[in-house]
């Protein structure tokens, strides 16, 4: 087989896999947009679902929840990653092990006690009731991310700043943060996407309709319109568009970060 024929064969494999992955995505978008009967026009269902389904306020809620979660998670993880990555202190290994538990054990494992904790703290049915536990759930991953990136930084730069008499905060502000910026931004994007997609936590925490997040709105919508596929597809399209947009713009840095974080670190 010649080189170019081998390349063509490989291209075909890639295209087939891509088609399999894209089919449900494009298909569901098509279901949402196509006119159903002769009377209805292109995008009709989408417009109807937008007004009837309450998705505009749900998108806004998701935006608030995801932004707040991203800020809190990334901020806390950058600070902790600096401590774990660039400092030596008693108990760092043990504390890191403790964080490892949260990386492995899923929300489902402690869902019930968490619910009672939130109730005791009077956080049920509020933004904070979703944002704080969601941040706590994402923090182990975020700390692993920042720790690995900060550890990979050239130690000489940090040492040089220290020799010049800079304290840990000065080093953090003027050395670690600027160098770590791309990694921190990629982390923030990932945190935004994951917190946008949360469903289970919103399901148990949120009870008033005005506070529902986008995935929760769709989940409940599915319960009401079980077989109305075009309506459900419209809802799916509406709640996915924001994440898909972010993804299309920033996928390169994101995938690079995830893949390299997976094998190094």
């Amino acid at each position: 087989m010649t080189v170019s024929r081998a390349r063509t064969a490989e291209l075909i494999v890639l295209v087939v896999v891509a088609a399999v992955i894209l089919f449900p995505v494009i298909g569901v978008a098509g279901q949402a947009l196509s006119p159903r009967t002769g009377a209805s026009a292109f995008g009709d269902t989408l417009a109807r679902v937008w007004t009837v389904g309450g998705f505009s306020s749900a998108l806004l809620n998701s935006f608030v929840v995801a932004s707040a979660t991203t800020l809190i998670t990334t901020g806390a993880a950058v600070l902790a990653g600096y401590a774990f990555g660039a400092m030596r202190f008693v108990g760092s290994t043990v504390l890191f092990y403790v964080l490892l538990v949260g990386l492995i054990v899923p929300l489902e494992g402690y869902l019930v006690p968490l619910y009672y904790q939130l109730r005791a703290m009077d956080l049920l049915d509020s933004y904070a009731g979703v944002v704080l536990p969601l941040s706590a759930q994402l923090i182990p991953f975020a700390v692993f991310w920042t720790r690995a990136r900060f550890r990979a930084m050239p130690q000489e730069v940090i040492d040089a700043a220290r020799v010049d008499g800079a304290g840990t905060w000065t080093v953090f502000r003027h050395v670690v943060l600027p160098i770590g910026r791309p990694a921190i931004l990629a982390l923030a994007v990932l945190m935004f996407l994951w917190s946008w997609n949360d469903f289970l936590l919103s399901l148990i925490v949120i009870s008033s309709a005005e506070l529902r997040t986008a995935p929760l709105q769709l989940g409940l919508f599915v319960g009401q319109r079980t077989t109305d596929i075009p309506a459900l597809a419209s809802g799916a399209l509406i709640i996915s568009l924001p994440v898909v947009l972010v993804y299309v713009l920033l996928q390169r840095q994101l995938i690079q970060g995830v893949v390299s974080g997976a094998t190094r670190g």
Partner: protein
Amino acid sequence: MAGWIGASRWLRRRRSGAPGEPHEIAYAYLVPVAALYGLFVLSPLYQGGWMSLFHWDGINPATWVGLENYRDVASNPQLRTAFTHSLVLVVFYAVLPIALALVLTAMLSRARQRGVSVFRAIFFLPQILPVVAIGVAWRWIYAPDGPLNGVLSTIGLGGLSRGWLGDFTLALPAVGFVGTWTTIGFCLVLFLAGVQNIPTDLYDAAQIDGAGRRQEFLAVTLPGLRNELVVAAVVTTIAALRGFDLIYVTTQGGPGDSTVVPSWEVYRRAFQFGDFGAAAAVGMTLATIIFVVVVVLTRALEPREA
């Protein structure tokens, strides 16, 4: 879903202490993480262990029952079914995608294709879509008048068509296949990136030794992908053992109990039946199983020390 990435190597080999001078001030930088993590992960986990030892409906005073809730997990047929279903889902979420992705990796040589980054973006796409939306897409595909049945009747197999998610025997595999679809691209992206990191001289040496493609794959590619295999196995297995969102939008555990999974049982027992002690016990069992599976997987795939 990929909440586990990055820790694989760390878990397998502890590095010697962190770089840098000793700094007491480090604890100050850990305060926000410690507060959030302690309050909303560690404390609920601890309380969950405690709660699982009681009979409690959420309203009346709880009564101590010791390990009865756990005995129930082991003996209650419905709960055992849920955990058995998890096992089936592991095949669909983890075993099948990893095997398929390895085959695809072997088919795609190491030569860089043009436009490979576009394909990579497409393969990774299911990772960032809301699972609820993915569930809706597959509700459409599996619907009685959906595209799957359409294809079957076109190729003359119309007799096989059915409402897939409403079928007692096929609903679970149908849900499982959604998992395969979700994770295979992730595995493939990981493996293709991993192959790029394998030193070229290893392949040259294999060729000089007259290795065929199959031998080359077994002797060079597979060992070279060890780290990626660990990550893929762990991430996909965790996804399989959770799976609440997808079950919620596709089948709600039905028809009958044919697609119930442990995370669904946790939700149903607590928030629909009001049996909080039992729900906590199922949750603790699930958490323990996931923890043990992850530790075993990482240890089992650990590279042998030379």
